[in-house]
């Protein structure tokens, strides 16, 4: 039966139907993904660890004990970002300092999915401790973007995004501190959502910046995103900042946006959005109007201060959170230190990579005596201004939209020598985390043969409104999430620009968009602007 299943196109909603109808067994479905991983992982490098044996055994058990192990997610294979602790499965944060850490408990979000009999395929690559926008800061490996293996998948949840885009997972969990779910989803042509701060428990998510971090889904459709989200939300006694949602997450329906007012912040479009991204964005905005929505220009005047505030707040929190990695209780310890202080300093010097050290240094500096008010205190006040901008805007609009990333996937290595250039990747996503709002990215077409993400932002706890609008828009866009697997480095296509999608993998994906010209895949009713 698995012969007809194309992991590049299969969505969780359809996979569930096949399982329920007995068209495919959980073991067969899991094998589709394990086979796909075996076939392409040596080019993509999305996983830090593939738990093949566990996945095969567990899926067989689900088939055998079908009566006891049922439920809406039973048997659906999932990839998990390797910064969520999983009992019995090594968790590394893609860091040398945690290279062989064996957790003694499981993150709440993962635990909920295990309890729902989801089959975990493995743990995915990330920028070390989720600090980065390209997954190149991983201490383990560099992940390739399945649309062009010479470009980055985005980050920090780049492994999860690449795994889903490459058909190496049906769906995945990621975490988002400044765009780490939405930006890689955008660069890999899939759906990614950051829920409202507090909607999903952070227990067992190895902390980067506690007031900003949030776990969320990376999926091949908005429907799948809602399906996964509804199973991970809820208050958790182990996370004091988690809250019970005042509603159930609905599975989205409908294809119209009638009555919806959508705000377009002029400040976001002034942020150096590249022309191809801007073109897809404008076309998608026109599509919003065709579907009955009303688009209005709005102002979020403190947008340009979001990035500076974030790069104080996130490193400050990180410098405190990462103090626990000291070679005493777990992880790497430097050999042969004469005394305790030397052991701490050498362990951390050897164990952390360059970007993590930079952030610890910025954070420690900003919190040190004499600088606290000028940096951390001021950043917290700017955070208030960013929140007020959104609050004021949402008095007049239901949702706010923007490009998710100012550019499409960039070449591996092109920003690694310039930390600030890398930070700019998250200009459009960072303010959302500062304000704790929910937002998601959906693919809205191609530019230079690479996917462009469209970001929808809502007020706190507007998940259902966001998902419903994104679902309607997704249907009208008709984007097919099947990447081309070209390698512009191997083909000498130095500019990373699209030339041809004529690779063996492209041939298997019937709707793989012809890349030349950057036109989005044709869809009925699409704006032609």
């Amino acid at each position, binding site marked *: 039966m698995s012969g007809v299943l194309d992991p590049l196109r299969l969505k969780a909603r359809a996979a569930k139907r096949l399982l329920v109808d007995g068209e495919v067994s959980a073991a067969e479905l899991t094998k589709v993904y394990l086979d796909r991983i075996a076939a392409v992982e040596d080019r993509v490098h999305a996983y830090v660890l593939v738990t093949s044996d566990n996945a095969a055994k567990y899926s067989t058990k689900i088939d055998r004990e079908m009566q006891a192990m049922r439920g809406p997610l039973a048997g659906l294979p999932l990839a998990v970002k390797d910064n969520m602790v999983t009992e019995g499965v090594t968790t590394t944060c893609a860091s040398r300092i945690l290279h062989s850490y064996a957790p003694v408990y499981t993150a709440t979000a993962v635990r909920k999915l295990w309890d729902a009999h989801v089959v975990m395929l493995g743990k995915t690559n990330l920028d070390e401790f989720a600090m980065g926008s390209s997954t190149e800061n991983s201490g383990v490996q560099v992940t390739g973007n399945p649309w062009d293996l010479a470009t980055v998948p985005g980050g920090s949840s780049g492994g999860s995004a690449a795994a889903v885009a490459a058909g190496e997972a049906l769906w995945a969990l990621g975490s988002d501190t400044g765009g780490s779910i939405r930006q890689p989803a955008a660069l890999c042509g899939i759906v990614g959502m950051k829920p409202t701060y507090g909607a999903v428990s952070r227990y067992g998510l190895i902390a980067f910046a506690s007031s900003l971090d949030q776990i969320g889904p990376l999926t091949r459709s908005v429907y799948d995103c809602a399906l996964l989200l509804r199973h991970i939300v809820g208050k958790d006694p182990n996370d004091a900042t988690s809250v019970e949602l005042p509603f159930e997450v609905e599975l989205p329906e409908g294809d119209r946006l009638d009555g919806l007012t959508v705000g377009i912040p002029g400040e976001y479009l002034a942020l150096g959005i590249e022309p191809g991204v801007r073109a897809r964005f404008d076309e998608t905005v026109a599509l919003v109007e065709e579907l009955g929505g009303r688009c209005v220009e709005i102002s979020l005047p403190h947008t340009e201060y979001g990035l500076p505030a974030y790069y104080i707040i996130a490193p400050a929190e990180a410098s405190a959170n990462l103090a626990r990695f000291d070679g005493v209780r777990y992880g790497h310890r430097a050999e042969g230190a004469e005394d305790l202080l030397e*052991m701490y300093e050498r362990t951390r010097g050897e164990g952390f990579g360059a970007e993590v*050290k930079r952030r610890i240094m910025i954070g420690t500096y900003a919190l040190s005596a004499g600088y606290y008010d000028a940096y951390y205190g001021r950043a917290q006040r700017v955070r208030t201004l960013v929140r007020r901008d959104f609050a004021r805007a949402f008095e007049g609009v239901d949702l706010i939209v923007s490009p998710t990333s100012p550019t499409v996937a960039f070449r591996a290595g092109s920003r690694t020598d310039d930390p600030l250039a890398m930070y700019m990747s998250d200009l459009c996503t960072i303010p959302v985390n500062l304000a704790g709002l929910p937002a998601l990215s959906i693919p809205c077409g191609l530019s230079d043969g690479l996917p462009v993400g469209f970001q929808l932002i809502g007020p706190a706890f507007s998940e259902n409104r966001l998902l419903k609008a994104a679902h309607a828009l997704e249907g009208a866009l008709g984007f097919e999430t099947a990447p081309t697997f070209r390698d512009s480095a191997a083909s000498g296509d130095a500019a990373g620009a699209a030339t041809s999608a004529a690779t063996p993998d492209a041939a298997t994906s019937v709707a793989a968009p012809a890349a030349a010209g950057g036109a989005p895949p044709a869809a009925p009713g699409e704006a032609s602007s």
Partner: protein
Amino acid sequence: MITDDDVRYVARLARLRLGPGEAERMTGELAKILEHIDKMSELDTADVPPTAHVLDVVNVQRADKVRPSLTRDDALKNAPAVADDSFRVPRMG
């Protein structure tokens, strides 16, 4: 302007041993990042209250009851060195 000496001082606060040339390289990188961050000083924030946290929750409390916690074996399981059911560390300097 951040100096090499500042970087070495902060590295000591952060318990980070920097390798040869690492402090000097970091001084340049941090200077550039901090220059961008200084953009915040364009704003007058004197009357703006700080946001530490976006939720309206304060002092979340639970019943003061004993609950099961990590076993000693689990707590020590990942330790690089153990002695007498404790974490073993080098002597204090």
